[in-house]
């Protein structure tokens, strides 16, 4: 229940090709996160799977059945929209019950499922309110409630947390992860947020201009990015990418080193540089160091490393953490 396969899926809007051709396998019970820059086709891909857009070419299989021509309701998927898309004139209870009413379910069964969902999502006290009288996080939970009562084969989330403040986002992130662990249903989740992608995913799909750049577990993408795009996209702050003679020394066109894999010293090291901006986050400090013949390097260090603008420091990249890329941008 919940295995989704895309074969050679293409999407064009008139002349514009948004998804050139894409193959993807999503296993039952997996938590898959789509990430990529704005406008790369994440939402479009999700809507293709949901059936809200028609594919221009290719095939979508859900649990082994060809779902390419199926209307959304028949696919057995539930979607949580970025704007929540709650029905404003219905109470929370009616909102959650709506898909069940549409399925002509017995009233007792509806009642049972709605109160069950309300309990899981902490909404029991709000069942008689309208969406307009709820906070953002509560609305989000109602939208999730409306999705879970149907017991779908898979959940689709399109940036569900992007309208929430930082603290609430952390909370909801945990709640969704917990929900996934208790329901064991396939979830496909679109996000911009690095942290959400890294912490929630079983599998991350990195998209760029409608193409899949790499698919893998969060740590695979972190440790072994397949190309420059993934290297620059996964990880925060971004990996330092260095071209020129320094890269040639390692037999590559470009080398990459993450800020957390550079050792910092006041006395000695491989590269000497001058500290520019330093960002103190309390637990960490990010230094932007200017080194002659290289782009500004970002270095992560402990929160207590006292440096000032203009200080001279020595940097040493950890040899086994250097990523090497060829002229075509692919990892060597």
């Amino acid at each position, binding site marked *: 229940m919940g295995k989704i396969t895309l074969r050679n899926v293409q999407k064009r809007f008139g002349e514009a090709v948004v998804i050139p051709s894409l193959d993807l396998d999503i296993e039952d019970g997996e938590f898959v996160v789509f990430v990529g820059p704005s406008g790369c086709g994440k939402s479009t891909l999700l809507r293709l799977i949901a059936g809200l857009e028609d594919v221009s070419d290719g095939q979508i299989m859900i649990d082994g059945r060809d779902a390419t021509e199926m209307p959304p309701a028949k696919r057995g998927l539930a979607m949580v929209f970025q704007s929540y*898309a709650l029905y404003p004139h219905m109470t929370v209870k009616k909102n959650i019950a*709506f898909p069940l009413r549409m399925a002509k379910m017995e009233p007792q069964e509806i009642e049972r499922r709605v109160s069950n969902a309300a309990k899981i999502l902490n909404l029991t006290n709000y069942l008689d309110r309208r969406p307009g009288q709820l906070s953002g996080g509560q609305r989000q939970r109602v939208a999730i409630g409306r999705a879970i009562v149907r017991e779908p084969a898979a959940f689709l989330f399109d940036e569900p947390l992007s309208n929430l403040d930082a603290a609430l986002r952390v909370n909801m992130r945990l709640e969704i992860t917990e929900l996934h662990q208790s329901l064991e249903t396939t979830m496909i989740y679109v996000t911009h947020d690095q942290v959400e992608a890294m912490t929630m995913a079983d599998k991350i799909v990195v998209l760029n201009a409608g193409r899949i750049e790499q698919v893998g577990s969060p740590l695979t993408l972190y440790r072994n990015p397949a190309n420059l795009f993934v290297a620059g996209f996964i990880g925060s702050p971004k990996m330092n990418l260095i071209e020129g003679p320094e890269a040639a020394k390692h037999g590559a066109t470009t080398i990459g080193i993450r800020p957390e894999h550079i050792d910092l010293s006041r006395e000695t090291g491989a590269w000497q540089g001058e500290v520019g901006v330093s960002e103190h986050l309390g637990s960490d400090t990010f230094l932007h160091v200017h080194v002659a013949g290289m782009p500004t390097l970002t270095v992560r260090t402990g929160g207590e490393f006292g440096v000032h603008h203009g200080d001279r420091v020595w940097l040493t990249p950890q040899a086994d953490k250097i990523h090497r890329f060829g002229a075509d941008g692919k990892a060597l």
Partner: protein
Amino acid sequence: MATQHSKTAARLMISPAVILLFLWMIVPLSMTLYFSFLRYNLLMPGMESFTGWDNYYYFLTDPAFSAALTNTILLVVGVLVITVVGGVLLALLLDQPFWGQGIVRVLVIAPFFVMPTVSALVWKNMFMNPVNGMFAHIARGLGLQPFDFLSQAPLASIIGIVAWQWLPFATLILLTALQSLDREQMEAAEMDGASALDRFLHITVPHLTRAITVVVLIQTIFLLGVFAEILVTTNGGPGTASTNITYLVYAQSLLNYDVGGGSAGGIVAVVLANIVAIFLMRMIGKNLDA
């Protein structure tokens, strides 16, 4: 408008308009009220005298009054039903993407720009005339007897004409409301397994209630005072078959030269209109909050 100072300034600024409006309303109203208690006939100038409630008594007990009251209600309700139902359907149609959308939308709005007198005359002479009218031609073409709309179904014909004039207004308001419906809500309903009819009933109609309220409120105000269409088509006849309260007041004061009786009718009309307004506000005005 938070501080005391800005409130005072605001009151001061709007006071000329409010005072002017107030005078504009109160002067004719009090004169009408005054006339309604006079025996005031234009055929007997200079013979005005105070008669107490006589004018009201005669106006309210006139059999034409109850006929006019019924006609007024039928006219208002009939036009409202046609324009709201037709307006929703037209708005749904116009909201679909199709070729030539812009031109069709302009055409749909067009009847609203035609003056009531003109459109009623066009309907009377070009469409409903039993000899030369378009409908008569069509009926003869089909081998049927032409139907004399204005003498055989005068009220229904007038309802048709007035509804034709107001349909664009309703369509326009409902169309804009329809366009403000969140697309994701529709998509969510689609994913929730709602059929097209379910989506219309559970999402579109509730979304439109506010716009429908506005249409009903505004149209009711204007429909209570329909006059030109009746004057140029049926003259309220045959008999009182298409006389509404407004036309009855006109007939009383200007055709019978009885200014006193007409004024009493006018006051009755004002009272009735206010009763309707209170009902409307009670029943559907609450839709406008929230």
